[in-house]
Structures are given as C-alpha cells and as structure tokens.
C-alpha cells in the first residue's frame, strides 16, 4: 500500500496503483475466476491488487469496505454481491474519496461502474438451449438460489423464456449453499422418484449455475436416465468437460470473464491515471453459449 493516504487519486506517476478487491463469494468458482483474471490484469499494469473475502457475510463485507477505505487505495472493486446491502460500505468509500467499481454486482449510486454479464441474458440463453432440446411441450425443473441476486435474475430471465415458449415449470427447487452439488443431486434424485420422466414427468432440468447442474447430471446418470437434458450457467471448466462427454449436461452459458475483468481494469486505469470517469454506470457483456458442438 502507499501508507501515506494523501497519494490517492489521479496522480499517476511514481507511486504504484493499489486496488483492493472485496468480495463475499470468493469460494464460488466463477467469482474466483473473475477475480483472478482481474488480479492478473491489474498486475500486468503494475498495480498492487489485494483481495478480501468475507465468506458470504454481508455485515463483514461492509466492514471490509471500511477497512479498505481507511487505507486509501486508488480503487475498491466489489467482486459480486448485492449493492443494496452495502450502502454503508459504499458510503465509507465515498467519504474516503475512493472510487468503487464492481464485477458482476449491481447498479448503485455508490458504484462508479458495474461490469457484468447480462444475467437476464444468461438465463434466457440457457433456457432457450434447454427448449431446443426438450421442445415447447417440455416440463422442466429449475434449480435456483434466490438469495444470490445474479442467480435470481437468471432464473427470472429463464422463467420468462419458458413461459413464453409454453414450457411447463414443474418446480423451483432451492439449492443449499455450501454443498450445492450434493444437495442438487439429492433433490433431483427425489424429484425423479416423485415425478418420473417421460409422460407427465421431468423432461429437462435448468441449473441456476453450473454446480447444481452437475449434481443433477450425476443424479440422472445414477438413475440411468439419458433422455433428460441439463443446462447450467457460468461455463466453468468442469461443466465444459461434462458437456464434452456427451452426457445429460448439454449446455452452459459462459460468462466472458476475461472481457469483464479487462473492462473493469481499463475503466479503473482511465479514472486513476487519466481522470476519465466511466460513461455508463452499468456495462453488460453478453455470454457465450457452450454446447457439445
């Protein structure tokens, strides 16, 4: 860090730029990947990047913002999380004159710019991919986690697409975190027992992110069901590997983390080194659908 506290702001020049990344969800693989990519981007630019994780605790997230602000870095990056819950932290940063950028969070006055995948788009794309497999008369099970705002938005996007296509949503199952894979696996196993597949049964499964989709895949494989496709969201490595195998896991929508990380880094660079404010409060980058082809 620069220690002095006065050196912050757009001086550029000799002192190296310091950026603190604060996140409640580092244990989430996608968040982790995005933050890693951002850290790499920053270090390439010669910045000092440190990462603080509060393991899902929003109160501590506010505290972490305060701690970060007290050290006067050049910028703070919120790595996912719900801005509605950290108004206090954002205000601390504002009071300290430290700009806040966000990766995959939400739009908020206290945030100079939020760069994210368009979660609604992710949900829509993945839902469409599932409809392509099961047809318009399909019956799908949705694996959701509403307390996470991003996953919630995806679910809303997906639901709209399903409804419009006339696909029946059998149920929305809340997946527990931690342990989403095993929890999804158990839930799907029981849903298969209760509803069966084929006529009146489940014909497709939509996962709000890749981990529950993986659990659903395993439940289907264990039950020797091969006609119920699964889609996920995030495009994590293990999901891609699973899709390549040609099993039930048929598609995921990859968030373009490298582009998002690069965008945030260049926005910070513009502000800190050239004093250029971001043009928009929210930048939404589309995802890329990954299927076996």
């Amino acid at each position, binding site marked *: 860090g620069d220690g002095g506290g006065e050196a912050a702001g757009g001086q550029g020049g000799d002192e190296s730029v310091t950026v603190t990344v604060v996140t409640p969800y580092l244990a989430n693989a996608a968040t982790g990947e995005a933050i890693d990519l951002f850290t790499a981007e920053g270090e390439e630019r010669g910045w000092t990047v440190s990462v603080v994780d509060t393991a899902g605790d929003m109160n501590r997230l506010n505290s972490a913002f305060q701690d970060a602000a007290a050290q006067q870095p050049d910028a703070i990056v919120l790595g996912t999380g719900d801005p509605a819950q950290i108004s206090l932290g954002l205000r601390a940063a504002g009071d300290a004159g430290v700009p806040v950028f966000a990766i995959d969070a939400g739009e908020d006055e206290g945030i100079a710019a939020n760069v994210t995948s368009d979660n609604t788009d992710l949900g829509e794309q993945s839902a469409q991919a599932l409809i392509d497999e099961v047809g318009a008369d399909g019956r799908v099970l949705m694996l959701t986690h509403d307390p996470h705002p991003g996953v919630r938005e995806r679910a809303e996007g997906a639901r709209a697409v399903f409804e419009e296509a006339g696909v029946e949503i059998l149920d929305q199952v809340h997946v527990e975190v931690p342990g989403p894979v*095993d*929890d999804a*696996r158990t839930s799907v*196993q029981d849903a298969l027992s209760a509803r069966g597949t084929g006529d009146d049964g489940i014909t497709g499964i939509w996962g709000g992110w890749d981990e529950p989709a*993986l659990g659903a895949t395993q439940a289907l494989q264990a039950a020797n069901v091969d006609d119920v496709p699964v889609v996920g969201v995030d495009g994590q490595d293990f999901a891609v590997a699973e899709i390549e195998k040609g099993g039930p896991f048929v598609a995921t929508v990859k968030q373009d983390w490298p582009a998002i990380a690069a965008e945030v880094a260049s926005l910070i660079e513009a502000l800190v080194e050239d004093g250029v404010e971001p043009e928009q409060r929210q930048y939404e980058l589309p995802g890329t659908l990954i299927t076996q082809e």
Partner: protein
Amino acid sequence: MMSSTAPAQAPSTEATRSRATIPARLASYGTLLGLVALIILFSVLRPQVFLTPLNFTNILEQIAILAIVTAVQTVVMVVGDFDLSVGALASLVGVITAQLLVAGTDPAAAVAAGLLTGLLAGAVNGALVSYLNLSAFIATLATMTSFTGLALLLSNGSTVFGLPDSFVWLGQGRLGPVPVPVVIALALVLLIWFVLSKTVLGRAWYAVGGNAEAARLSGVNVRLVRFSAFLVSGTGAALAGIVLTARLASGHPTAADALMLSSIAAVFLGITLSRAGQPTIGGTAVGLGIMGVLSNGLNIMQVNSYVQQVLTGLIIVLAVSLSRLSRRRR
C-alpha cells in the same frame, strides 16, 4: 454381631426396577416412534413412490456420507465433546485427494494420503483438547476455520475435477444392487458399534464421557482415551470427504461443510433414545433415519423448499418432544 442377618432389601428394589421401566422404556422410544410415524405418514401420502425399494436405496445413498461423519461424531460425543471441524476437514481432505489424483497419484495412494491427513488433523484436535485442555468447542471451531482456509487456499476456491473412474467408483459404484457409499457407511457404523459396545476402549470412552474425574481416579488414562476419540473422528471425516469427492467426481473446498451441524443433530436425536443420556450407535442410526426420511419424504411430497426447512425444524422438535413429554420427572 449383626452382619449375619442379611435382610433382603436389595432384591426387592430389583423387582421394582424392571416393573418401573416398562412404561418408561416405551416412552423413551419416542424418537423411534417419531421415525416410524414419519415412515407411515409418507407411505400413506405417497405409497407408489415412497415405499419402493428404489427409493429406499435412494434414502440410504443420500445419508451414507452423513452416516460416516455421524458415526465418528458419536464417538466424540460419547467422550463428552463435540467435533465442529468434521465438515471442514472432510472438505479439505476431498480437495487434497482430488488434487493428488489429478496430479496422477495412484488412487490407492491418494486415498491413503487423504486418510492420513484426517488422522493428523484428528491428532491436532485431540492434542488441543486432551493435552492442552482447551474446550472442544473452541478448539475444533478454530481448527474448522483453519481447515476451511486451507481447503480454499489449496483449491484456490474452485472445483478440482477430472478424477479417474477407479476412484469415482468409491462414490458412484455399486456392489450388486447396493451403492458403494452405503456399503462403506454400513461397515463403518458396524465397526464403531462393535468398538463402542464390546471393547475396552469403547467402554473407556463411555466412562470418560460419564465422569472424567471418576475415570481418572480409577486409573483410566483419560487424556489418551479422549485423544483417541478425536483420532477416530478425524479419520472418519477424511473417509467421508473421500467418498463425497468420489460421489461428486470432483473436489469442492466447501462441499462437506454442512455435514457438521447435521451430524451433531443426528447424534442428539439419537441421545433421546438412551436412558443414561449418552449417545449410542443405535440411537444415532435412528437419528440418521429421521433426517434421511424427512428430507426424502418432503422432497417426494414436492413441498416448497423453504416450507421444507420450516417443517424440518418442527418435526425434529415433535419427534424429540414425544420422548420427553412422557418422561418428565418430578
């Protein structure tokens, strides 16, 4: 002078005792009755689904990993302590094993390394509790934090995947119609049952849990006995972590964390069946049964997941209260 006259006082009390305990015993089976009631309830409500052999296998499979952790948690609770680190340790061992496998280690060697990690971690917990006299709660809470940190650090927070099929078999394979995790869990539960009830070590665990001071004054090596319980729980947690990793065909740094509270809850449910208020493997099995049947049954009934949580709490309270209401003393 007066010792010759042996008044038959003692036998008379013996007779009264067995008479006394017949209703008391029935009452103390409340939790078991709770399990039976749940099974009947779900069977009546969804007979075609709930009462099938397939679903029965499903339930067993779903609780197999929890059963492993709970069996060893039982040991620690017999000694009168808790092990809060079991979930975090299982996650950590899962990550380590998965990383070794991905690095090309032979599955047998990777499993052995995982179990050894668990044994060592158990030794750390045991040393803190028995030799440094820390309360088990604070000691295992602290190591839990460290284990989680380590698991995240090693995996860099992400999923480790690409595990060989021979390893994955441990979690997904079957021996005849029986899933391998169920076989492993059953074997462990039987082993722990045997040790707890038939061996000198098991009785020493109970003695220390019943009154550590009395055990010490009888010449029991209380520290060693308590230490050994944590060795068991560390190794068992590692086994659970390995089986879970095989089942998920991937290592996640927090995959097993939820096992901790569930395992303690299952043991506590079981304790209500014990007259002396101490954990037994039989009781633990009933506790596990309640947890497994409840979650499966509610899923099968297609109850909203949030409502499921509300009901789970209520039903646990009901099941336990059943055994208590009729056992109220004074």
